[in-house]
């Protein structure tokens, strides 16, 4: 079956009941959605399916044949952050970072929605997402700023050489 992920079309070989999360991570090596609980309870696997936030661990791929999936990998780059990414960076909304992708995709769906979004609506929209580090305030600050356009990527001093992503040297023989 076919699936478009971040604008690229893929032929997916996994069996039809395979959760989208597993297809993204194991078949396509798109690893920003996390397997936090694999039972819909933590929000860390949230991606956009045709623009709507969905728990990828609860979604069998056969149920979204031909759909367009968006993950954090498709938002922006360290050099050119998307508004949601810039807001999370500016507000220190990511601590250990493991829940961050899910929060950001739920936030991205809010940003794409028309009209004003109150802080209370942000809290309601994020209520399915669990963070054990931040206590949520910084995340809610970031998302409220992002949905209301109060983001200025220039305010974030972009460090061109982040050290967080160079910790792992791939083993010889492993895919790049």
């Amino acid at each position: 079956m076919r699936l478009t992920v971040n604008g690229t079309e893929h032929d997916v070989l996994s069996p039809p009941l395979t959760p989208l999360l597993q297809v993204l991570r194991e078949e396509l090596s798109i690893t920003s959605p996390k397997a936090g609980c694999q039972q819909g309870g933590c929000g860390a696997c949230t991606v956009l399916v045709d623009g709507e936030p969905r728990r990828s661990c609860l979604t069998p791929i056969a149920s979204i044949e031909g759909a367009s999936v968006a993950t954090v990998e498709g938002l922006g780059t360290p050099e050119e952050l998307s508004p949601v990414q810039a807001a999370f960076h500016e507000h220190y909304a990511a601590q250990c970072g493991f829940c961050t992708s899910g929060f950001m995709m739920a936030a991205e769906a809010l940003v794409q929605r028309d009209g004003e979004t109150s802080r209370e609506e942000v809290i309601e929209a994020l209520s399915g997402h669990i963070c054990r580090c931040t206590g949520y305030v910084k995340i809610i600050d970031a998302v409220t700023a992002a949905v209301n356009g109060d983001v200025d990527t220039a305010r974030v001093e972009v460090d061109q050489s982040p050290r967080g992503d160079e910790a792992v040297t791939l083993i010889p023989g492993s895919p790049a």
Partner: protein
Amino acid sequence: MKAVGARLPRYDGLAHVTGRTQYVDDVRVHGTLWTKAVRSPHHSARILSIDTSKAERLPGVHAVITAADVPHNVYGHLEALGVPGDEPLIAQDEVRWKGQVVAAVAAESEEIALAAVEAVEVTYEEREPVFDIRIASDPDAPTFHQWGSTYPHFGPHNHRRVRKGDVDRAFEDADLIVEGVYRPQAIEHVPLETQVALAVPEPSGRLTIYTCTQAMYFSMGVVAAHLQWPLAKLKLIGGTVGGGFGGKVDTATETICALLAIKANKPVKWRFTREEEFLVSSTRAPWHIELKDAVTKDGWILGRRTLTLHDAGAYARFSPYGVTKHAFHHTGAYTIPNVRFDGFVVFSNRVPTTAMRGFGVTSVSMATEAHLNRVAEQVGMDPLELRLKNANRIGDTTGNHVVMHDPSTVVVTLAAADAAGYQLGEEYRSMTSERRTGELLPEHLVAQQAPDGDHLATYNPATTNGGAH
């Protein structure tokens, strides 16, 4: 000092918000096998037999290990500190908690690994478990640990002791005695990233292990000890932890991954399910804390007796260390001249307990702070004023004979009261951390005070009555 007060970007912030941070589960190594564990369905039982033959024959299964495959099975997390080992990596002859690993498999998919786990046949003879640490030392309570119902290796003692001053006299001199029992519960850390490791055999004969551990070199030592390998043959890669909170101090998955990887000669990954994380990963310990304070009617605490039971679960792990920290903090941020503390590490048929955010300290802080409110209520004093009166000051000596040279109790309490708009009497608002004099130095506190100007030196316990054991 450019960093102080500045808003600096997190060093890992950009990697986090672009989804590029590579956690253990994100590392991709071709041909990686999945691990699943055969776990005890009983809280306490003898193992009568284990048959792994059917699992080994399943297509796609590359390795099955039991206790017999572990070069050095019984080990203790604190062996480096002289605490003897008591815990097998994989259960041997008996299981002491529900969920204890009895065997582990490595297979080509998670699905096959689950099927292999089901194919392992284990027979047990159940024993009566013990869960209530208050009765674990009763003569008729079930015993299961080779050391008895409590951990026995605190120097010459079978429990952690603190002695200072003359407690019996303090209780004789007291106007009233305030008692309380406090029982903080077990808490699961719930990191969003469950326990995970990936072990990769290298052509050189070494083993590379990707781990979510919070304690890299410690984990390396544990793996090396079980494998009986020199440290030089191990390369551990970590530092990116998806939440730990103390729960990733225990070496949960690395060693079993390593053994399976060696046996299968293939990369092996083990990621706990959320259910495993809740049910079988270690938790913060539950405690039973009994406090008894000798108090004067004007709010001085003359003495404290403490009995603490720390639920270690089925094996010691870090519990002796936790109860020692607990002992160190049992007078809180207050000066109590006469103390007697007895802290026991009690074994139960629960999952072994471990560190969590202030190991051993938060439990005793909860108990002592709740207890101070109780004291204030019975004395008829404002609870903050009672705290300010008894707060540590420069030159005061703690229950463990440490001289305070920069205590912050007074200033922090005043700042908190101020922030909360809490009304305090004038004499309390003007208090400082300076050495006790005048009304703040009643007769019962004179002897515990270090000589003026001597407070930066370590106080000599020999000059006081008693000492920490």
